[in-house]
């Protein structure tokens, strides 16, 4: 390309920046918004943000385009959004781990920290359960704890890796109960679901969704308790950790929208408002039901304070246990 063409292009480009609309936040968004997803395509952590992106497109009037950038437990996606221009056209749909990567700094370094991201709103999360096989001798949480206490180090606990929130939830509960189990790491939930079904592990922390849910409903798996504030609708007889008298709520997992630090509050509230409207849309509720993912809403302020409380809790736990 010759120099004159380049010069013309530059001048045109620069002049467009002075268009009155370029800085008007009420007009955001004026072009497609990229939503960065931290997981590989296909899993529930991917399908839920995609569903939201679909509905956000209609709400915002501009396409919200999901883009997968998997790897490093979501830190690659997090780093990408943290380093992006804070103009509201790059946002991330992240969970607890990506929101505060410094908690796991000893396990897996990240190129950013929670200070580099601004939370906008939370719209979903994972329902976390403590699950055993249906033909196991533990018919209830109490029986499980009794057995574990009288047989220390016998039970095989399957988890998705040291540092993962599911592992933290399980270990924190075990710690509170004063029980010891053999911790067996796996690469993914699919792997330890298989191991549990095959009888190679005895207990694990499982998402209530996807294939695990099918097994729970088919009564091949049994849920002992759920790591939630309230009981899960479809499992009315299963107690929550709180009801059982335990404080461990490390299983409180969210999926929310984040923007790079420096994004204007106007854009943040635009995203939050749009999400609030989407959540009230009955079609969206239907879609989430079909995916078997919950709607967990937190507005910007609540979300911010939850994130700092949550990461402080987890950091404290990891420090006390000597993991970091």
């Amino acid at each position, binding site marked *: 390309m010759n120099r004159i063409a380049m010069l013309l292009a530059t001048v045109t480009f620069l002049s467009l920046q002075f268009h009155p609309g370029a800085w008007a936040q009420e007009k955001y968004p004026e072009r497609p918004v990229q939503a960065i997803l931290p997981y*590989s*395509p*296909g*899993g*529930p952590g*991917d*399908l839920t943000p*995609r569903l939201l992106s679909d509905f956000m497109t209609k709400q915002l009037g501009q396409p919200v385009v999901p*883009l*997968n*950038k*998997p*790897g*490093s*437990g979501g*830190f*690659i996606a997090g*780093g990408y959004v943290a380093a992006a221009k804070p103009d509201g056209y790059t946002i991330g749909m992240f969970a607890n781990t990506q929101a505060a990567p410094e908690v796991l700094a000893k*396990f*897996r*370094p*990240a*190129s950013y920290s929670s200070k580099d991201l601004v939370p906008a709103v939370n719209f979903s999360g994972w329902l976390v359960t403590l699950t055993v096989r249906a033909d196991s001798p533990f018919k209830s949480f109490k029986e499980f704890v009794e057995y574990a206490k009288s047989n220390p*180090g016998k039970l*095989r606990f399957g988890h998705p*890796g*040291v*540092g993962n929130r599911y592992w933290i939830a399980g270990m924190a509960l075990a710690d509170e109960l004063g029980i010891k189990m*053999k*911790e*067996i*790491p*796996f*690469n993914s939930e*699919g*792997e330890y*679901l*298989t*191991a549990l*079904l*095959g*009888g*190679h592990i005895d207990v694990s922390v499982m998402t209530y969704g*996807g*294939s695990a*849910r*099918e*097994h729970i*409903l*088919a009564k*091949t798996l049994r849920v002992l308790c759920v790591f939630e504030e309230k009981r899960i609708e479809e499992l009315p007889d299963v107690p929550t950790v709180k009801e059982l008298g335990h404080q461990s709520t490390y299983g409180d997992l969210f999926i929310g929208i984040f923007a790079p630090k420096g994004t204007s509050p106007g854009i943040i509230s635009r995203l939050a408002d749009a999400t609030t409207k989407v959540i009230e849309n009955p079609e969206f509720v239907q879609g989430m039901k*079909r*995916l*078997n993912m919950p709607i967990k809403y937190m507005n910007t302020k609540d979300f911010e304070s939850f994130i700092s409380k949550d990461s402080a809790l987890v950091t404290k736990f990891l420090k006390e246990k000597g*993991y970091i």
Partner: protein
Amino acid sequence: MEFLQHLQYAFKIGLDPMNLLAAFMGCVFGTLVGVLPGLGPSASIALLLPVTYYFTPVQAIIMLSGIYYGAQYGGSTTSILVNIPGEASSVVTCLDGYQMARKGRAGPALGISAFGSFIGGTVSIIVLMCLAPPLARMALRFGPPEMFSVMFFGFTMIIYLAKGSMIKSLMMAMLGLLFGCIGTDLFGGGIRYTLGIPQLTDGLDMVQVSMGLFGISEVLLILEEEDLGKKDIQRTRMRELLPSRQDWKDSAKPIARASILGSFLGTLPGGGPTISSFISYAIEKRLSKHPERFGTGEIAGVAGPETANNAACGGAFVPLLTLGIPTTVVMAVLLGGFMIKGVTPGPFLITKSPEIFWGVVGSMYFGNVMLLVLNLPLIGIWVRILKIPYAILFSLIFLFCLVGSYILNNNRTDVLIMVTFGVIGYLMKKFEYPAAPLILALILGPQFEKYLGQSLIMGEGSPVIFFSRPISSILLIVAILLLVSPLLLRWGREQRSRLSEESGDDLA
């Protein structure tokens, strides 16, 4: 009798015009995806997920499945023609397929590959139909100790991938093991050998490595030749386009063995088409009357692996459709496709949504037929590609590799990793170090470590666990026997010749 009923039902759904169309679209796209190095079934299924919005659940799943097994048909094309695997499961096909092409036998190679794929795919569907639930239950019995033994068995197969110097092959296998250490340590949570590159935290991706090691290196190698504008791969005249009767005779048993092998291996976690193709190659070489011919263009070395990888596709559907468990990354994406349409596979699928289960099964029959019909005439077109001058052909290949490696994770570093392995692969080719053992070790190594660690935790540090469980001990014993059998045979022969010498002396 129930079998025939199910078969009827499956065919009814499969023959539905819209479903046939969906299957056709999936197969065509899958073949394309398989042929292009880099773009794999998981990336393309993910790309097409939004498109399935307009389809009914049955149609969507039929189409996405078509992409999956279609890619296994197409993957061998570039392996045979230009020594560049389209898929990780087609790496082994490069070994003998490309040599056949250089001898002017690209047609029969492609042909036997297509037929083998068809037979393998069909057999695995029959297995899926008749044995899905019991197979799934059996697959569940493969816990960490059993999988360790499978990996152990797989490692002993590396020997059979050796071409030429055994030392060099073992060196490459060790290198593959070392490369496999890159990433996160599952048991301590720490990071190993990532050189601070975040993209390496999850280890090396098979796609980048095989594209670099085989594709980019081939491009670099070709750059050394002169007259790139005029030369082409076709060194000898094209003799036939289809496999001869002798070819069929040589391939019959390999295809039969590979069909069964793939159907069962596919049901195991992480099993899948890739490992099935490697193990099939090793088995064929071991059982062949002319093992020394492997690596020079022996058709059994193409027939076996290509059949196995397609059979493994069908096998992989067993745990997915009966238990909702994906055994490989591609199946996980397929699972996502199911869930988007509101269908979650699990123990209920066959009973609650029989049209999905039998629909997929039925359409797979027709999909395989369509693929065979599609691929056979294409052979004539593909072999013309061999006439394209190097300069154009390899520039295109280079472009596809670059794009393909980026598209996987939308990541620039992946491209750099691929190119790095391209340089490594180039050096390996120049100094005649075989790449196949490296790839196999890279695939098996991390899994080997994982299963070893998990089993030892289960067994509280004692290796007795591997022998206290029936499946695991049988596999280990067979593997050990295979390893020492050449030694035993040689020892036996020496004893016999010594005995005959002694008796000969007596007679004299």
